[in-house]
Structure formats: structure tokens, C-alpha cells
């Protein structure tokens, strides 16, 4: 109807332009003058070569610098805050864990989960994840040896404390202790910014984790892995939750569950980096890739 559309401004002009149906690819943009033909984006798809061993058709696996660039853009251009994205990321991780390892599937008497948090943002994701796991009925315990003094992290720690999530004073010395007490370990030690050698105490933590037999769920990157090349003799998690988009290291992932989380990437950004993210189901904040 031309009448109301003419009056109701930009939103309806765009709606009229797309009246023929939505573009199939998730990365379409709303801008004025973006006609349906261009929306098909076929030439663009042909331009980039899918990485070997990639998941769903055309899904891009990011290098470390690209991942950092996207992150930066989300904060500087799109004005997201770390709090916001960390909350959504942590929620994604907890939701993925709930899908793959429901509380009823635990062989321990309680659905006990050990969350090991590193010093940076990956650790923050772990703290948020622990809080949501508690709300979903799990019994998380956190080990957070190197705490950031930034207010965000202090806030997240307080939230966990106030929700009666215990913080271990020291890491279990033996892998067998972990196997006995917990049904799952969440690895939130290092993320996509990790470079160089692993500093203590995380070196010994990782060697212990490499020997546990209960499943390990890694947030974004299995800790200790090179973000692009992986690490054949390193941690072998059962689950990987890639945030925003999978990184190249995920191509070396051999565990059972690979989820995509962090459902906050604006379509324009997806388009810019040709992420080719598959459609998330419904309102879920996670998507199972394998």
C-alpha cells in the first residue's frame, strides 16, 4: 500500500524494496538502493575460497588478526560494550553445554562442573557461563587464579560469589580428583588473543587437564592451542563453542560437539567479513555446527 509506506519513512521504503521476499543469505543489508538482485550475493560467494575442512557451506574460519579486527570493530564502530558481548557470549556457552550435556546425563550425583578461568576476556566469558549454568540447574565451581582488577571482572566475580558459586583456592593436584568430583570441565583459560608461551600457573593446569577423562568444553579456542594452527599434542576437548565465528584452529578440532555462539554480529559486519554464518535456529543463541 503506497499511502502508509510513503508516510512512514525509511522503514517502509526498505520494506517495499524487499517486498519480493528476503534474501536467502544471512549477510544481506538494509540500505536504501540495495535491490534484490544484489542481495543474492552470488558473485561474492564465488570470490572467496572456502577453507579446507570447513563446516557448513562457505562458513569462514577466521585468522587471529581478523578475529581481533572484528572484535575491535564491534566495540569502536558498533559501540557494543565488553559487558554486553561477554554476557551474550557466556549465555551462549552455558546454553550449548546445556544442550550437549544436560544435567540428567551426568554420572556424578550432582551435575558438578569445574570452570577454569584465565586472566583475560576468555576468563570473563567463563565467569558469565558459570553464573548461567547455575541458573540452569548445574553446580559450577570456579577456579580463577589470576584475577583481573578491572571493574567488569570484579563485578562478575561478585555476581558468582553472591550466587553461592564456590571458588577453589587451589587447583586439584591430580586429574583423577577432577574426574571424581566433576562431570564436565569448562576451559575458559585462553581465547583468540593468545600468543606465545603459556605462563604459570596455566602450564601445569593445562597438563593436568590433558589427563582428565571427563569431557572438556572449550570456550572459543582450546586453551594452549595456536589460534590458527591448533596443537596436536595439546588439550583435546570434547566440545568447542566458537564465538562470533570459528577460528582456524577449529579446523583441527576433533571433539564431538562444535557449537557456534555469540549471536550478536550485525548483518553488515557479517557481510563485510563474508562470514557466511548459517542461520541460528529460532531464538536460540547457539547453533550446532557438528
Amino acid at each position, binding site marked *: 500500500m503506497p499511502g502508509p509506506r510513503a508516510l512512514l519513512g525509511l*522503514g517502509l521504503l526498505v520494506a517495499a524494496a524487499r517486498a519480493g521476499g*528476503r534474501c536467502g543469505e544471512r549477510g544481506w543489508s538494509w540500505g536504501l538502493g540495495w535491490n534484490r538482485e544484489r542481495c543474492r550475493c552470488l558473485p561474492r560467494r564465488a570470490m572467496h575460497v572456502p577453507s579446507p575442512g570447513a563446516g557448513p557451506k562457505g562458513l569462514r574460519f577466521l585468522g587471529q588478526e581478523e578475529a581481533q579486527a572484528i572484535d575491535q570493530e564491534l566495540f569502536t564502530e558498533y559501540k557494543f560494550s565488553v559487558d554486553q558481548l561477554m554476557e551474550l557470549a557466556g549465555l551462549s556457552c552455558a546454553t550449548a553445554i*546445556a544442550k550437549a550435556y544436560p544435567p540428567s546425563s551426568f554420572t556424578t550425583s550432582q551435575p558438578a562442573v569445574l570452570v577454569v578461568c584465565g586472566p583475560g576476556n576468555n576468563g570473563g566469558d567463563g565467569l558469565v557461563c558459570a553464573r548461567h549454568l547455575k541458573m540452569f540447574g548445574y553446580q559450577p565451581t570456579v577456579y580463577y587464579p589470576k584475577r583481573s582488577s578491572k571493574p567488569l571482572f*570484579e563485578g562478575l566475580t561478585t555476581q558468582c560469589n553472591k550466587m553461592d558459586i564456590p571458588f577453589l583456592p587451589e587447583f586439584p593436584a591430580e586429574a583423577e580428583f577432577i574426574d571424581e568430583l566433576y562431570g564436565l570441565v569448562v576451559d575458559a583459560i585462553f581465547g583468540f588473543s593468545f600468543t606465545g608461551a603459556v605462563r604459570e600457573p596455566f602450564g601445569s593446569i593445562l597438563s593436568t587437564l590433558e589427563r582428565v577423562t571427563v569431557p572438556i568444553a572449550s570456550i572459543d579456542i582450546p586453551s594452549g592451542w595456536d589460534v590458527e594452527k591448533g596443537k596436536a599434542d595439546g588439550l583435546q576437548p570434547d566440545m568447542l563453542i566458537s564465538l562470533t565465528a570459528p577460528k582456524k584452529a577449529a579446523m583441527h578440532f576433533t571433539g564431538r560437539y562444535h557449537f557456534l555462539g555469540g549471536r550478536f554480529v550485525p548483518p553488515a559486519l557479517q557481510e563485510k567479513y563474508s562470514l557466511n554464518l548459517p542461520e541460528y535456529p529460532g*531464538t536460540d543463541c547457539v547453533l550446532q555446527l557438528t
Partner: protein
Amino acid sequence: MGWEGPAAWGPNPGPQPRTPTRIPSCSDSIPAVPPGLDPPAPLGSPGTAGSASPGSPRFPRYRRDPGPAGLAFPPGGRWRRPRPLRPRSQAEAEAMEKELLEDYRFGRQQLIEMCGHACAVAVTKAFPLRSLRRRQPTLLVACGPAQNGAVGLVCARHLRSFDYEPTIFYPKRSPDPLHRDFTTQCEKMDIPFLSYLPTEVQLINDAYNAVVDAVLGAEGTQGTEGTEPCAAILATLRHVRIPIVSLDVPSGWLPGPAGGSGDISPDVLVSLAAPKEVARRFRGRRHFLAGRFVPEELRRKFGLSPPEYPGSDCVVAL
């Protein structure tokens, strides 16, 4: 994998059947307690939240006589299970928020993000994509100048990522940098912002499937709704014929047993953290609670019994 699963996609499955156990009294002013039951536990005592009521737990404590308008059955409407949560006064709601911010050290942005996300999920449950009348899943999101408006902005952004097509009307922008960031995020998601709201209601009815009312929150119940442009928005919303989803409180509703004749009539209400006092008068189709983020200790302290959230959902239908 055996998980009950979050949002079922498709036609609205309706309220989940639940056994009416562990339901404390709906209102302080419930008079006689049915024989055989103990009186309701006082507010904040450990017995109220999460545990079976003393005496026979099988019979929810609701009154059969109409009583004040707040608890009357909707005429000709479906019988609903009595609401298990006592509506909060403005003072209690503020105290709870203060505690979340100061004691629990939640960030304000965090809370608004969680609330907005939960509201968006509730909207998708009330109006699943496939159930919408129009070919395009358009929604109008009317945002006021205060926190309720910020929740509306976050809600619009999440609705956009859920493949709806929200359009925002945000006439009086808050100078708060936090709210400005939310606005930028929406703009960058290519969500259009209307420059004015037509007073011709038919245009709204024709263009959108539903309206999300994020004009005034609990602060609006203090009677400040007369300030422009909120008053003008509400005047228009009173006459729309498409469903309205109100976030936290129907904008402009003042506390009291009887509503004003000029009140808007939302179809869906999404209460944040806990239902507010004015929610007693709500007569619409669906009432959701978005409160999963409230820590258990805080719920106990304020006498909120924990509703059963399905799966990993952040909202529950009351």
C-alpha cells in the same frame, strides 16, 4: 540429547501444564485461609520460596469470590492458574534493582541487555514469525526517554537478529551515554528510526503486526506520563487495533485497583524481574516473566518463588 529445549518454533504451544504445588499466596490481602492449610508465610521468610507450602500443597491459595478487581477472573476468558508471584510495589522494585547493582555488582548495561534479550524472546513466543498476519514481520518499537526505552532498544536489536523487522520510534533521546550506545547499535543493525509517529492510527495498523511499548516503565506509574512526547505516543497507542506488547508495565498505567479510561490495553505483558503492582489489572492474552537472572538469594529475600523456566529459556509464561 534429551534436553527439553528452548523456544519451540512454530505455533504458540500455549501455557505449559503445571501441578499447582508450592504456590504461596497471590496477594497479601487474601482473607480466609481454607481449612487445613497454614496461613501464608511472611514475606522474605525461607518458607515462601521454592519449598512446598505447609499443610496440603495441592490447593493453590486463591479466592473464589471476586474480591478487588485485581483478582477477578477475566470475563469469558480462559481460566488461568493463579499467578504464583506477588506483584511488587514501586519501592520494592527499586530496592531489588539497587541490590542487583550495588551488592551483586551487576552492571546497568548488563541488566538492560538481559532484560531486552528476554523481552525479545517473549515477543517471539507470543508472536511467532510464521503466525504473523503480514508478509513482512514488521514491528513498531516505541521507546521512551528512560530505562524502559533502553530495554526497548535492546529488545529491538535482538528482534532484528531473530529475523523480525523492527522499526523504532524514539523521539526523546536520553543524553545518557549508555542509551546513546544502545541507539548506535540499533542504527548499525540497520534498524530504521521513525522521525515521527503518525497520528492516523490506521497507518500503524496497516504497516505493523504489533507494537512493542517501551515508553514508560515503573517510573511512569508516578504520574509523569503527561510529559510530551510520551503522552502523544500513548494517545495514539490507545487507539491502535494491532496487539501491544508492554515491557514491564503498560505505559501510563497508574497504581490503584481501577484503571483510568485512557489506559492502553496491551495484549502481552513482559514483567522484568518480578510483576509490578499494576500487573494485577492486566487482562491481556499472555503474561511473561523475564527474571531468570535474579539470583536465588535475592528472590528469597523479596519473597519471590522461583517459577519453573523451561529448559534454558530466559522467560516463562505466567
